[in-house]
C-alpha cells in the first residue's frame, strides 16, 4: 500500500485520467496528455448522460403513467440493491477486496429467511396481522444474524489468512468462496425457486391517475430507510464504527492506535452480512429466490457501489437507486427501450462506462491509487 501511494507521477503517463493526485510538476508531454484525454472523455461521457436523460424525458412525455409506475418499481428494486451494495462498499472500504461471495451470502440468507417464514413461523396470508408483523420482524433479525455469521465466517476461514498475500490471491479466494457458498445453497435448497406467501397486502398506498403504489413496495422502503439510518449511526457515532473508518484509512496506524484490526474487519463483514440478510428478506417480499440469484444480483449491486464511488456509503445507496431505476426503465418503458433481454449487458455497459469515464464514481474521491 505504501508503494502504491508513491506511484502517481509516472503512472500518469500510462493511465491518462485515472490518476490525478500528483503534486509535482509533470513533464510537458504528460501535461498535454493529461489535459487532452480527460476533456475528450468527459465530453463523450456528458453526451452519453444527455442521451440517457433525453430518452427518459421523451418517455415521460409519451407515457407519463407508465413512466411513474416504472419509476416506483425501480425505486423499490433500488432499495434492495442498496442494501447489498452497501455490503460491497463496506468490505471494499476496509480490505480493498471485492467480496465476490457477498451476492451468494445474500442468496443463502434469502433462502434461509424463506424457510423461516414458511416452515418455522408458518406464516400465511391468513395469519393474523400481529403474528405476521411479529414473524416478519423476527425473520429480519434472524436473517440478518445469519448473514452476519456466514459473512464473518468466510472472512475468518478464508480471507484472514491472506492479509499479507498478493491481492490476486485474495480475489481468487473470493471467487472460490462465492462458488462454495452457492453450492451450499444448492445442497440445502436444490434448484427450485423459493418464495413466501404475499404477506403484505396488495392494496395501494396511493393511486393517482393510474399511478399505483402498493404496500409491498412501500414496505421495502419503509424497512430500508431505518436500516440505513441505523447503519449511518453505527459507522459515524459508535466506537466500533470509528474503528472501522480508522482501519479503512490506514490499518497500520489504526493498529498502532490500539484498534483491534482483526475484530474490526470481522465486524465489518458481519455488518455487511447483516445488511445482505435484511436485503434478502426484503427481496423475498417482492421476488423469488434460488441458489444462483445472488450471483447476478451481486454483480448488479457491485456495479451500483462502483457507480456511487466505492467505499462511499451514501454513494452506494445513490448508485443502487440509479441502477434500480435504469433497470426498471429499461424493462418497463415502451419507447426505444432495449428490454429485459439486454438488462445484464446494460448494467455491465454502465459499469464499464463509469470505469472509463469517471472511475472514482459519482460521490467518490479521487485517490492516488487511481480507479
Amino acid at each position, binding site marked *: 500500500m505504501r508503494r502504491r501511494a508513491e506511484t502517481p507521477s509516472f503512472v500518469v503517463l500510462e493511465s491518462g485520467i485515472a490518476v490525478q493526485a500528483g503534486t509535482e510538476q509533470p513533464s510537458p508531454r504528460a501535461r498535454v496528455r493529461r489535459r487532452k484525454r480527460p476533456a475528450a472523455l468527459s465530453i463523450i461521457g456528458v453526451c452519453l448522460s444527455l442521451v440517457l436523460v433525453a430518452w427518459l424525458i421523451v418517455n415521460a412525455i409519451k407515457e407519463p403513467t407508465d413512466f411513474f409506475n416504472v419509476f416506483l418499481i425501480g425505486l423499490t428494486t433500488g432499495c434492495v440493491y442498496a442494501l447489498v451494495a452497501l455490503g460491497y462498499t463496506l468490505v471494499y472500504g476496509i480490505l480493498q477486496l471485492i467480496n465476490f461471495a457477498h451476492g451468494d451470502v445474500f442468496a443463502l440468507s434469502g433462502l434461509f429467511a424463506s424457510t423461516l417464514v414458511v416452515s418455522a413461523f408458518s406464516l400465511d396470508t391468513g395469519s393474523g396481522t400481529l403474528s405476521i408483523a411479529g414473524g416478519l420482524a423476527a425473520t429480519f433479525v434472524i436473517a440478518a444474524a445469519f448473514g452476519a455469521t456466514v459473512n464473518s465466517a468466510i472472512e475468518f476461514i478464508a480471507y484472514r489468512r491472506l492479509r499479507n498475500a498478493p491481492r490476486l490471491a485474495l*480475489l481468487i479466494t473470493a471467487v472460490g468462496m462465492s462458488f462454495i457458498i452457492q*453450492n451450499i445453497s444448492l445442497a440445502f435448497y436444490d434448484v427450485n425457486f423459493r418464495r413466501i406467501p404475499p404477506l403484505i397486502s396488495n392494496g395501494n398506498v396511493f393511486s393517482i391517475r393510474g399511478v399505483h403504489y402498493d404496500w409491498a413496495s412501500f414496505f421495502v422502503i419503509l424497512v430500508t430507510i431505518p436500516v440505513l439510518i441505523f447503519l449511518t449511526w453505527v459507522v459515524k457515532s459508535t466506537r466500533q464504527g470509528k474503528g472501522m473508518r480508522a482501519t479503512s484509512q490506514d490499518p497500520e496506524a489504526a493498529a498502532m492506535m490500539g484498534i483491534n484490526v482483526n475484530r474490526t474487519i470481522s465486524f465489518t463483514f458481519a455488518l455487511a452480512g447483516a445488511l445482505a440478510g435484511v436485503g434478502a428478506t426484503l427481496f423475498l417480499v417482492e421476488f423469488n429466490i434460488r441458489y444462483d440469484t445472488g450471483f447476478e444480483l451481486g454483480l448488479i449491486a457491485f456495479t451500483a457501489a462502483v457507480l456511487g464511488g466505492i467505499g462511499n456509503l451514501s454513494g452506494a445507496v445513490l448508485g443502487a437507486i440509479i441502477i434500480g431505476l435504469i433497470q426498471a426503465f429499461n424493462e418497463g418503458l415502451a419507447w426505444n427501450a432495449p428490454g429485459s433481454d439486454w438488462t445484464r449487458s446494460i448494467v455491465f455497459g454502465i459499469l464499464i462506462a463509469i470505469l472509463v469515464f469517471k472511475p472514482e464514481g459519482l460521490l467518490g474521491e479521487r485517490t492516488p491509487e487511481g480507479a
Partner: protein
Amino acid sequence: MAGRGQRSRASLRGYRGQVASSTGLHRVGAAWNQLPERTRSLIPFFALLTIAVTYPLYVDSLPTNVPVILTFPDMHSAVTILVFTMMAVGLNVVVGYCGLLDLGYVAFYALGAYTAGWLASGQFQQVKFHFGSVGITHDARGIHISIWLVLLSAAIVTALGGIFIGLPTLRLRGDYLAIVTLGFGEIVPQFVRNADNLHGFDLTHGTFGINPIDSPGFGNRLHNAVGLPVSYQQEFDADRLFFWTVLALLLVTIFCCIRLRDSRLGRAWIAIREDETAAGAMGIPLMRTKTWAYAIGAFFGGAAGAYIASFNSVANPSQFNFNISIFLLCMVVLGGMGSIWGVVVAAVILSWLNVEGLANIGSWLNSNTPLNFEVAKYQFGIYGVILVLMMLFRPVGLIPERRRKRELEEGTRGPLDEPIYEMRGADEPGAGERGAGGNIPRG
C-alpha cells in the same frame, strides 16, 4: 528442475564416496545424471508426448472398469480436454505471466467460436463465398473459408477483441479489471443470444446458435498427392484426426508461450506482475505491455474457440457462461500461475473431470460406497474449494514456476497468530497521514 537435478547429483556423489559398491539402480542414476541438463529436462516431455500422440492407437484396448475413474477418456472427450488445455495455456499468459485477473476469458472463447461460425458456415445465406473450403457442395450458400484460415482469422479477430476490451480497462487497478472482464464475459454471451434480430439482421441465430460449421480438411488435391484426409468430418476416424490436430495446436501454443516468456515482452510481463510500479519506473510501457498480454491470451483463446466450434460443428450461446471462465482460471491456479507445465497438467486433469471424470467418480462412489452424492451437481463447488485451498495452502500451484514461488513466499508470512501488520514505512515523512480530500501528501 535444474535445481533438483543438481541437488540429487550432489547427494549421489556423496553417497558414492561412502559406499564403494554401486548397485544397478545407482548405475542408472549415475548415467541419468551424466546426461546433459537439457536432455534430462526434455526426456519426460518426450515420454509424455509419445503417450499423448499414440493415445488414439491404444485407447480402445485400455481397461474399461478401472476403480474410481471407471474409464479412460475416449477420443471425443480427449479432443475437448485438449482444447480446454489450450485455452488454459492462453489464459496463463494473462493471469500467470502478467498477473491480470481475467474473469471473462469465456468472451474470447465465444468470439473465436462465432468467428468460425461466421466464416465457415451457411449462416449468411445472402452471400456465397468459398475459399479453400472442404467437404461442402459447390453451390452451398454462405461464407465458407478453409478452417485453417478461419482458425488464424478467429485468433486475430479475438486478439483485436482483447485489445478492444483491454484499452479502456487495463489502466484500472487489478480488482476493477477483474470485474470489468467479468462484465465483458457476461455481455458477450448475452449479445450472441440476443443478436438474432439486430434491426432485422440475423447475426448469431439466437439461442439455436450457428450450425453446421465446416470441418477442417485438406481438400482433394492434397488428398490425391500425399493422402491427407479430404475433410475430417467425412473420415471414418474423424475424432482421431481432430485429436492429433489439436495436439499439434496445443504444442504450438505451448511453444509460443515458452518463447514469449523468455522474450523481452515476457520479461516485461513478469516485471509488471511482480511490481507494476517498479516496472513502470524501469521504463516498461505498462499499458502497451498489458495490452499485448491481453491480445496474446485472447489470440489462443480465439483459436481454441474456433477449433472447438468446428469440432462440435456448432457455436451456441449456452456454451459460454461465466462458469467456464472460472473453470479455466481454476486450471491456471491449480497448475501454478505462470508455470506452463503445471497449467497443462492441471488443465488436463480438470477438463477430464469436467468432461466425464466427475460423473464417473460419482457413479463409482454411489455404487461402491454407502455415500449417495451427486458429484457432478457440485462441480463448481468443487472448483471453488480447489481455488480456496490452493490459495490458502499452496498458492504456488502444483508445479510452481520457480520465480513465482519466490515471489509468493516473500509475500506470505507465518500462521494466524503472528502480528499481521508490520510497520512499513513508519519512518518516512508523511507516512500514514492523509491531507484534505483523502490525498496522501508526498514525502
